[in-house]
């Protein structure tokens, strides 16, 4: 077979195996090595809810897709150029994601009678059964080669078999001409206390690399040159880490120590885990007894003067609803991060969706408007969290930040910012006043009340969930209530004076405007670029601020013949826009499959208009 070195602009690789096969790690290491090499990357972990689902079954397959490019990469890619399948179930579950021209690497050792049966194949020829005979399929005896590689290592059989993902990674490093140094460094860090494992893992990695270079079955290897990136220092970051860091950044800028009360929930837990690490920056985290305590400890901390945050996912936000109303009526600063997942109820907890928008906007008793923001990429979670903190503290109100499992788990290279480039955060803390302190007296610009911290002499006051007069006295006076309801709504509305205008990507007027919010940005952007390249009159307006909307929203919409609202739900944002700007007609492109859009979904929707 003729060996070709392809100079590729971008390549999509999908690693798939049993949920215990270490595919998330393999994919992450490949992505990190590529990012450090200077490629653009975007990753998409796609894993089941079970930690170790029944071995060898389709339901237990865990996947990790990474898109690597020397050009701009905005999505993890629709279909893959290379699929790695560690067992028959992984092949069965993932063959549909492989391009017609894809190379498929499988662990031949796993394709025995038992393996095929567990995966539900009816014949002993899974390739034919899946109708993928025309793909370049490489049957590599990965398990036995790993055993052979480590037979003198002194490791037990279980530990040896567990190393097979490193063999696979080595093969991929050959195929894609990746440097191995970064992974060596990772192994040295990870196994600092078990030096034996550093050597064994390195050996298997190198043996996998050498095996791939020797077999000649790999027709194509790829070079993906470093991307032309803006000068600067870069790191790879996922959305949950970026969210945690953005919150820490807001704490530092405001001088208010960070407090996070939270309860573990997929896929938001990593934010709590990340914050728990950073005690060096004064962050206090409290893993609570439940979701309600998560938000309530944070409300208590906010009253005491902390920059308080709570992190959760859909069902957790439901549990926090009543307390969110308390944060709103007591007008305390609080950031609530909802890493959205597939619902309703427990739904498909490890899969992504944008189905909590209605809950974020409306899910409370009484008239309880709350500022709602959304992050649009893994690294943008940093800025989104920072500004959520700025709005919460400067405007004295809770702010909901919506991210998504797709963003939280996905990663991309990020040009490291400098904190001096971020604005100051100046909470309206009051230290003394003439006469008695009146907790609900507002400033004229933001309509925010003052923040009087317990411990300050002379500012003793009471807040609570009962309606109050501006002086802070309990009041059930009808007109006072109506005035207070309006004042709290006005405060949220006035945030619009402080948010950036809605930008249009592409021409500012034309045939079709794609409208999106949150984590669909990469796919919408790629689709718009492709359509524009094909000469179509298509632009994109992507919303980071949802309540309130940017002030120029209607003006932007008015310049287009079609408005196509694309979102991973049945039309929640479209309906919201219909309520606020009913003068326009909104067409919809929706997907509720627990999966992100594919660029193709958007292209099809536009072409069908």
């Amino acid at each position, binding site marked *: 077979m003729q060996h070709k070195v392809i100079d590729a602009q971008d390549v999509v690789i999908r690693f798939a195996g049993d949920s215990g096969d270490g595919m998330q790690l393999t994919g992450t290491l490949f992505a990190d090595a590529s990012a450090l090499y200077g490629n653009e990357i975007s990753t998409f972990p796609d894993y089941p809810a079970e930690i170790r689902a029944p071995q060898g079954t389709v339901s237990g397959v865990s996947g990790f897709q990474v898109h690597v490019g020397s050009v701009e990469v905005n999505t993890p890619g629709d279909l893959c150029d290379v699929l790695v399948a560690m067992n028959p179930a992984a092949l069965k579950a993932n063959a549909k994601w492989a391009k017609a021209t894809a190379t498929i690497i499988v662990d031949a050792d796993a394709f025995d009678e038992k393996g095929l049966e567990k995966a539900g194949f009816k014949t002993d020829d899974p390739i034919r059964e899946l109708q993928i005979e025309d793909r370049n399929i490489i049957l590599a005896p990965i398990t036995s080669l790993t055993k052979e590689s480590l037979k003198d290592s002194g490791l037990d059989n279980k530990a040896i078999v567990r190393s097979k993902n490193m063999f696979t990674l080595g093969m991929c490093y050959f195929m894609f001409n990746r440097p191995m140094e970064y992974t060596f460094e990772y192994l040295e860090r990870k196994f600092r206390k078990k030096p034996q494992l550093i050597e064994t893992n390195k050996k298997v990695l190198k043996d996998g690399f050498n095996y791939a270079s020797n077999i000649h079955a790999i027709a194509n290897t790829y070079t993906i040159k470093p991307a032309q990136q803006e000068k600067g220092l*870069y790191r790879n970051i996922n959305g949950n880490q970026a969210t945690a860091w953005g919150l820490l*950044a807001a704490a530092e800028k405001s001088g208010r120590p960070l407090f996070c009360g939270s309860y573990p929930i997929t896929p938001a837990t990593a934010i709590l885990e990340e914050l728990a690490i950073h005690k060096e920056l004064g962050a206090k985290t*409290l893993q609570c007894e439940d979701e309600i305590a998560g938000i309530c400890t944070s409300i208590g*901390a906010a009253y005491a003067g902390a920059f*308080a945050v709570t992190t959760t996912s859909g069902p957790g936000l439901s549990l926090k609803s009543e307390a969110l109303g*308390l944060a709103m009526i007591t007008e305390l600063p609080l950031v609530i991060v909802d890493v959205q997942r597939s619902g309703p109820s427990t739904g498909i907890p490890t899969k992504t969706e944008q189905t909590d928008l209605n809950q974020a906007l409306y899910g409370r008793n009484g008239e309880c408007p709350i500022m709602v923001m959304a992050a649009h990429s893994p690294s943008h979670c940093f800025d989104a969290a920072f500004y959520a903190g700025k709005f919460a503290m400067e405007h004295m109100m809770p702010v909901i930040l919506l991210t998504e499992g797709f963003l939280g788990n996905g990663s991309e290279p990020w040009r490291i*910012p400098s904190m001096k480039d971020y604005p100051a955060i100046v909470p309206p803390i009051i230290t003394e006043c003439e006469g008695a302190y009146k907790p609900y007296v507002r400033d004229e610009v933001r309509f925010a009340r003052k923040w009087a911290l317990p411990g300050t*002499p002379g500012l003793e*006051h*009471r807040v609570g969930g009962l309606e109050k007069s501006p002086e802070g006295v309990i009041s059930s006076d009808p007109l006072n209530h109506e005035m207070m309801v309006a004042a709290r709504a006005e405060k949220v509305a006035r945030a619009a004076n402080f948010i950036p205008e809605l930008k249009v990507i592409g021409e500012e007027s034309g045939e079709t405007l794609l409208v999106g919010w949150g984590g669909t940005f990469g796919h919408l952007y790629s689709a718009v670029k492709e359509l524009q390249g094909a000469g179509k009159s298509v632009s994109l307006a992507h919303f980071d601020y949802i309540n309130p909307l940017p002030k120029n929203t209607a003006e932007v919409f008015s310049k287009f013949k079609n408005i196509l609202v694309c979102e991973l739900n049945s039309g929640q944002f479209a309906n919201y826009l219909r309520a606020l700007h009913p003068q326009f007609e909104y067409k919809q492109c929706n997907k509720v499959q627990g999966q992100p859009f594919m660029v193709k979904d958007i292209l099809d929707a536009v072409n069908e208009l």
Partner: protein
Amino acid sequence: MKYTAQDFKSNQEVRWCPGCGDHAVLASLQRALPEVSEALGYNKERYVFVSGIGCSSRLPYYMNTYGFHSIHGRATAISTGMKVANPNLTIWQATGDGDALAIGGNHFIHAIRRNIDINIVLFNNQIYGLTKGQYSPTSKLGMVTKTSPYGTVEHPFNPGSLVLGARGTFFARSLDSELKLNQEILLASAKHDGTSVTEMLVNCMIFNDGAHATLSDREHRADRTIVLRHGEPMIYGKNRDKGLILDGMKIKSVTIGENGITEKDLLVHDAHDPNIGIHSMLVDMKYPELPVALGVIRDVADKTYDDNVRDQVIDVQEHSPIHSMDELLRSGATWEVK
């Protein structure tokens, strides 16, 4: 700074029913705080009164201090966050039997388990008052209420047993009308580092009048209750002639002078014993078999959660090479694009 009870009274009109036991607890707090402030060197602005929902949860409005009247059951969680965020605050929490033990039961036991330094005053009237008379988790078995017209069929919680079960470090009990004892207990609660729970047996004139009458009745109080004080023998009775001894594995009431019993045979109260054995028996004593225990039953020193959190932060800060966001952003695996 010297304070008087007057300094702790807010200008808000107290809206509890006339004769409600809550009035007496409020007065006890307002009288205890000047003493607490003097003993511990506290200024008024460090006190925060936190509450949930229910009659007793209105208390923060009547205190001229910082206050937070929150939502049903969640006061303990709110107090917890407040104390962890600012350990220099002294948190008092007013809560009822429904608020703390029904809807807020989870937060209650976990605060105790963590030993957060907060002072919980549990107003136990064995009824839901603000919703007008439904049974609570402490209502006696068989009690007839609006939601149990044929009598309840569920066993009540004993709050003290719950506290000890969660390895609580402080538990005290008193009667609303015992102002002097209340002040003594509230001072001990303030001095205790960790979660203090004081169960106040309060009377609800409207929906559960006389719930504690057997104990509070002036004529018989001394014979039906025993006030425990650390280091003192367990003596009670109008004539101070009754006492408690350990008979095998059980506590038994005896009369001094009968069957050769002298004061030396009596149990001596050790509130500081970490072992919950005797404390469990003491909190569980019921009239008429035994007198009901009042006073500080358990007061054990242990490290608090808020101190542990603070110490951990200081320790990590001392040893970490990272001191700012810019340093964090540049830490770990990075690469330069030139």
